């Protein structure tokens, strides 16, 4: 429930932002990170950005999430 996932801000309008989360766009509240600008990466939790993060680390975390999501319905993860 305290899961937060990285997203890239595409556009900001008033208190809301359009963000890209691993290729999907959605609207999130931006009030908790007033310093965020289009192009920045943020962590999204419960429909709000809660923290600005570094782009490189955001990409690494997203890659891991995709890896997890791929395995979501698989046998119990992949072991080698």
């Amino acid at each position, binding site marked *: 429930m305290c899961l937060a996932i990285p997203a890239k801000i595409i556009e900001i309008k008033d208190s809301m932002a359009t963000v890209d989360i691993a290729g999907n766009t959605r609207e999130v509240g931006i009030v908790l990170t007033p310093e965020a600008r289009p192009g920045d990466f943020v962590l999204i939790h419960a429909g709000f950005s809660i923290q600005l993060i570094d782009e490189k680390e955001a990409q690494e975390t997203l890659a891991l999430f995709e890896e997890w999501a791929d395995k979501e319905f698989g046998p119990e*993860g992949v*072991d080698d």
Partner: protein
Amino acid sequence: MIKLLNRVQKERAQGLLVEIEKAAQAIGRSLVLMEVCGTHTVAIAQSGIRDLLPANIRLLSGPGCPVCVTDTADLDDVINLAERPEVIIATYGDLIRVPGSVSTLQEKRSQGANVQVVYSALDALQLAERNPDSEVVMVGIGFETTAPTTAVVLEQAQQKDLRNFSVFSLHKVVPPALRALLTDPEVRLDAFINPGHVCTILGMEPFYFVSEEFHRPCVIAGFEPSDILEAILMILNQHRSGNWKVEIQYRRAVRPEGNQVAKTYLERFFQPVSARWRGLGVIPDSGLALKPEFAAWDTEQKLAGVRTTAATDSGKRKKGPPCLCGPILKGQKQPGDCPSFGQACTPLRPVGPCMVSTEGACAAYYRFGVGRK
């Protein structure tokens, strides 16, 4: 071998495991570490970290799943509210399947109650705007990561003068729960792996008491397997040096001072109150109630008779197979110790909240085959 890692992370994880092994040997005695966050519980179960640690390093899952720690009496109050014809309940998903003392929100919904699952408190606000003749009650569940989002939505409700929206705040805060665990004579813990995103909001300061008063390490960790291993190594290194402190492993998302904007929202809209946690009982100043000036948006102030079940024997279900969620949330029992685990209680037919929530220890252990009989 550690699961679900790419090559770079795998090499890093293997290097950390070697260091952990050396540190654990040097320490010699057994250490019990608690991961406080439900998202950590899932990551640890999924990656198989528990089985890779040296024999003298034990990981316990703590009270870090907001749905799991919600008390049965509080849930009964929500379920009773759902029965009112004018009320629309807006809640995060997992809660609707958690058994109250006699029913669930899902059961009430199948009987005609209006219960809506939302992804964000913003969705609940929109629900109120679209349904002006109904009273939308947002069930405020979650820790410091989530409570600021509720506060922002309260601000918007106030600005819009939206009068058919209120928040039933069951929000809780983490530091008093850690204090309760550290002062509980039945619980033995040597360190905390601290919840990363709670600390994104809070920063380090609220956790200084763990090292200063209780002389234990407290390391704020990220959610990738190598993050968790690095946090474990940092904890072991503190035990070796005897230099107790709060440290941040999850530097990419946690600033020492936290998120000041979010903290200001918490202070503006909420005040600390005693709250009852499943398993841990009543903990002073561990709940967040709306401040009196927001009474118009506080379900408990606005609607009469909301707190109907406060006097009942809390935490006891009136029917069904045994459930050890309480002691499991304190780290006193493991999911596999429960006679219902994987038998009468499975994710499809959960008996208790720790099996309902995907972040619950029972659900995570079941799904990834930890301690299954």
